[in-house]
């Protein structure tokens, strides 16, 4: 087993040693994650009520979404979570170049996810699949329902995508810092970033079946 990087310079006030700092950062991140669960939870409550009341609308909406593309997006995020684990591992072992490399890989996968998302948005907007501003202008109940479904779709995937964007920015910043390499980043911070990134993954794991897989069979 390789040695844990436990240099005293990694420890920041007011902590006493690396284990202490790690435990605090981990707890802090999990408190943050609990908070995010409720933040996204609101959207899933909305989704659940909407689907319970209008199962047909959700099914029809789900059929308008691109399942193969979304499957690729899911795989992309899962693999990026794996590369993030390796980035955290490199940081814990004090392997600076490994850290920079795996962070870069994670960031690129995230950008690929965002590119697919952008393509998907573009496609739906071009097809007129947008939340309609005025329902009374909708010519039929079906059209009105579809507008509502796409309201749900854009809001749920949009808030997720915003979280991805935030993650990409921090990952890029950390990757650059590691590549320049004047000072090794604190691995407790990389661990925190990793927790955040996996959380973004977890949210998508629920968004994916909720929206994309609702319309088939």
């Amino acid at each position: 087993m390789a040695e844990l990087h436990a240099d005293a310079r990694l420890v920041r006030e007011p902590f006493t040693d690396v284990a202490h700092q790690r435990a605090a950062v981990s707890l802090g991140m999990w408190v943050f994650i609990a908070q995010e669960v409720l933040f996204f939870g609101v959207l899933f409550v909305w989704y659940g009520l909407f689907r319970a009341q209008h199962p047909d609308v959700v099914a029809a909406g789900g059929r308008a979404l691109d399942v193969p593309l979304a499957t690729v997006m899911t795989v992309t995020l899962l693999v990026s979570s794996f590369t993030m684990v390796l980035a955290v591992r490199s940081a814990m072992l004090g392997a600076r170049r490994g850290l920079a490399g795996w962070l870069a890989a994670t960031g690129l996968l995230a950008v690929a996810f965002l590119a697919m998302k952008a393509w998907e948005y573009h496609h739906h907007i071009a097809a007129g699949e947008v939340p309609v501003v005025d329902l009374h202008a909708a010519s039929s109940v079906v059209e009105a329902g579809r507008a509502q479904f796409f309201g749900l779709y854009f809001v749920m995937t949009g808030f997720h995508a915003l979280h991805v964007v935030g993650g990409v920015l921090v990952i890029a910043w950390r990757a650059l810092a590691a590549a320049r390499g004047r000072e090794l980043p604190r691995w407790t911070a990389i661990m925190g970033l990793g927790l955040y990134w996996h959380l973004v993954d977890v949210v998508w794991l629920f968004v994916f079946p909720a929206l994309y897989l609702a319309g088939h069979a």
Partner: protein
Amino acid sequence: MVVGLATLGVFATMGYFVWRYRYRPGVNETGRDVPGSTRLEVGWTIATTVVFGGIFALGAAGFAERQHVPAGRDVEDVLVVGKQWMWKFQHGGGRREIAVLHVPVGRVVRLSLTSEDVIHSFYVPAFRVKQDALPGRTTTLWFEATTPGTYPFACAEYCGGEHSRMVGQIVAMPAEAYDAWLEHREPGEMPLAAAGREVFARHDCATCHDTHANKPAPPLEGLVGRRRVFEDGAALVADEAYLRESVLEPSARVVAGYAVAGRSPMPSYAGVLTNEELFELLYYLRTLKDATGVSR
């Protein structure tokens, strides 16, 4: 009242302790060392819970009474529509009014409340009743005036600019006088059942809902109060809420034998009927209770 006594009790105890155990140099310089008493804690926890439980029961009983119109009473139905910033009323007998609501003394008045825009709340302090009027939904409220007179009402849910002027008066009058008042209809005011029948005719409902031929929809005579069995085996006794759902969301519950490909063949009338039309239609359907063959 219990709560008033509780407040006085706390104030008195606090005042007494503060005076009795005030700091007096040479007499009372440090506090007694009493860390606590589990028996006391458990005691006052149970006592508080019991008292609160009693208050809850009283409140819930009073609330339950307001949920349903007492059985066997004559009911005057009134549709109440809130809009920024006025209250509009439509009586079962057809008369319409704004900002003033005439009601008979000694009869139960049931209000069906809805809103054209934002949430309002119909509040009559003298009758101790209040109910929000929501857009896109109908809520109900009943009261009974026992003494003739005028009683102010107001909007209790903040609804924008002129919210504070969204007020008016209930005029409670003897039942005979009310009946006479109800007969003075303006041109264009029509009893609700008749108005509802017009809605029924205008949307060609009878094309499908017909008693005599083998039509694709269940007949409507005597529907209210009758047990309905649905495609999925569930059943309920048809009431106003069920009628409303059937008009707005026909596929939500389809009566056994009438489904086509698992859905109702009837289109949804949500967004097609206005709130008033829906109220009139449902009022009319309720009058079909004992009728036969009227829906043609």
